């Protein structure tokens, strides 16, 4: 979506480091993106890419040895880094909702579903007692839990994984947040349940006008759910743009490799993997962190960090192949498209 409205969330140059025994290691490096109301940004990456650290940094939940070391996070008109901890607590859960991968660990096993939804409302002073219970019932119905009236008094272990995740979504939207952060919300679920939860998230975004940050390792989930995608690799966003454009015409060699390594329509035969392994935190390569695995690397790639190159009004790629000084792939076309009326 490209509305002219102010973004709900605006992240600029977010950088996070982990203080390891061997010294500080950059886990997230200069990450920037915006999310508008009603829009879903998919943040896709493999293990250690920094996608979850980015999310935790945004809401200031990154714990030692990790810490956000630079950049800005603007939520509506507020710079979240300037808030006191009590002020921040009023934002978390109230204006920014969360859904995590493991609904069983996100829920408290000793409280009923109704009590946990009610608590979210009570903590933020939105409803108490019978009103909280009535609102909890309304929320369970909104996330389409059958027999919501009965389920209100169930404990988490009495629910299936998919139902638990629906409860987590009910809690996340209980205070009518403007932003929902969903970190691998369907990874622990079966594929048919995943489909239901993704449908539900789409519906919630539409009906509540939510801005959504969807973190996943699954490009299929991105394709079905997100409007725009940011691809992360070893701490950096290497490519960002509308989902359709990025999946149809990936501009970064990593995105391309990720797509071609998936089993496609061709049956049998070998797949096309990316060589090498995902680097571990503390051992990120110099220059472009993807260069040791990159089939198209240039001489410059192991020493210099590629800056963001705008290849269209809506697309960005961090790759020297698209930098007019080094690349010979498509860069000039991309730069000139800005000048010949594409705007």
């Amino acid at each position, binding site marked *: 979506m490209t509305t002219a409205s102010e973004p709900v969330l605006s992240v600029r140059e977010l950088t996070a480091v982990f203080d390891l025994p061997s010294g500080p290691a950059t886990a997230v490096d200069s990450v920037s993106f915006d999310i508008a109301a009603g829009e879903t940004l998919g943040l896709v990456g493999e293990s250690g890419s920094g996608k979850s650290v980015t999310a935790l940094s945004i809401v200031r939940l990154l714990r030692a040895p990790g810490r956000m070391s630079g950049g800005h996070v603007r939520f509506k008109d507020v710079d979240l880094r300037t808030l006191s901890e009590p002020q921040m607590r009023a934002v978390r859960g109230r204006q920014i909702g969360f859904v995590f991968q493991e609904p069983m660990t996100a829920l408290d096993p000793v409280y009923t579903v109704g009590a946990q939804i009610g608590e979210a409302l009570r903590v933020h002073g939105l409803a108490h007692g019978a009103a909280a219970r009535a609102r909890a019932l309304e929320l369970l119905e909104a996330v389409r839990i059958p027999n919501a009236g009965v389920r209100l008094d169930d404990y988490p272990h009495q629910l299936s994984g998919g139902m638990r995740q629906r409860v987590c979504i009910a809690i996340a939207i209980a205070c009518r947040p403007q932003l929902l952060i969903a970190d691998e919300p369907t990874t622990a679920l079966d594929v048919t349940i995943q489909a239901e939860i993704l449908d539900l998230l789409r519906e919630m975004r539409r009906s509540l006008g939510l801005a959504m940050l969807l973190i996943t390792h699954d490009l299929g989930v991105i394709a079905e759910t997100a409007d725009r995608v940011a691809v992360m690799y070893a701490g950096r966003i290497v490519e960002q743009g509308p989902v359709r454009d990025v*999946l149809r015409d990936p501009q970064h060699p990593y995105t391309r490799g990720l797509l071609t390594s998936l*089993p496609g329509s061709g049956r049998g035969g070998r*797949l096309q993997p990316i060589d090498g392994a*995902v680097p571990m935190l503390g051992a990120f390569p110099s220059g472009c962190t993807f260069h040791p695995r990159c089939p198209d690397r240039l001489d410059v790639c192991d020493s210099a960090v590629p800056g963001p190159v705008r290849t269209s009004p809506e697309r960005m790629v961090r790759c020297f192949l698209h930098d007019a000084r080094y690349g010979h792939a498509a860069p000039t076309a991309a730069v000139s498209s800005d000048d010949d009326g594409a705007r």
Partner: protein
Amino acid sequence: MPLPQRQSPLTMMALVEIDRLTKQFTRGGGLLGHRTTVSAVDDVSFSIDAGETFGLVGESGSGKTTTGRCVLRLIEPTSGSVRFAGEDMLAFAPERLRAARRDMQIVFQDPYASLNPRMRAREIVEEPLIIHRLGSRSERRERAAELFHLVGLDAAHLERYPHQFSGGQRQRIGLARALALHPKFVVLDEPVSALDVSVQAQVVNLLLDLQSRLQLTYLFIAHDLRLVEHICRRVAVMYRGRIVEMGQTAAIFAAPRHPYTRTLLSAVPQLDPDLRPARAPLDPSTFDQRANLREVGTGHFAAV
């Protein structure tokens, strides 16, 4: 190669035949509880041809993993039969079973949990040889190096511990161990599910290469339907302990006949954003869950 080499007869015949396999678990029966019996695997029959990759798909609780383990008698089936190369596995006495296990191996999903963190990679790979008392110490070392090479690892790293390898490398170690005894048949239980996407394809390619080089037969248990579609010649779809559809992968993916198969396939996220699939939600009341498989096309069976 001093270790005994055995011929694997590659004829187009069934290597593994599973007939009416059932595994019931009993739970409860404590102080006040009632004993209840659950059929994790319920009257399952299929056969795997020598040299083929047979896929077993289904969601958690469908019984696919239990089926895989019953086939190897890692879990004792309640009833039914498992024939391997024509012989009834379930009739084997312990000694005979141990010998037979050399022909059949398993690779587990989690390369982190399935390798003993206190053993060196070499010890992990050599262990099956020691258990089956094969080869001298130096022969075993030689075989470990050979296996490392076979799965694309550097033999210089044999003395390392599991945590010093990446997830993909660890899965290669698990595979080297599984191949140590020259098996004919390998159960692959979600072998790439725990790996990063960019590494999954490397391991899949290795599995394909090894299959053609060593004439292996695979039972491939997975929930990733795109991958199953890619590498399995035939597939069985399990739902609540039963096979509800079985046949050529291409035929089933093109035209699923059972409502559950339709639901499952329609839930797979498509990579093309313009291809929002028409979901086919499952309504269990619309079909007979006890229906038997019947042939609905050439070699295509569905419980409808």
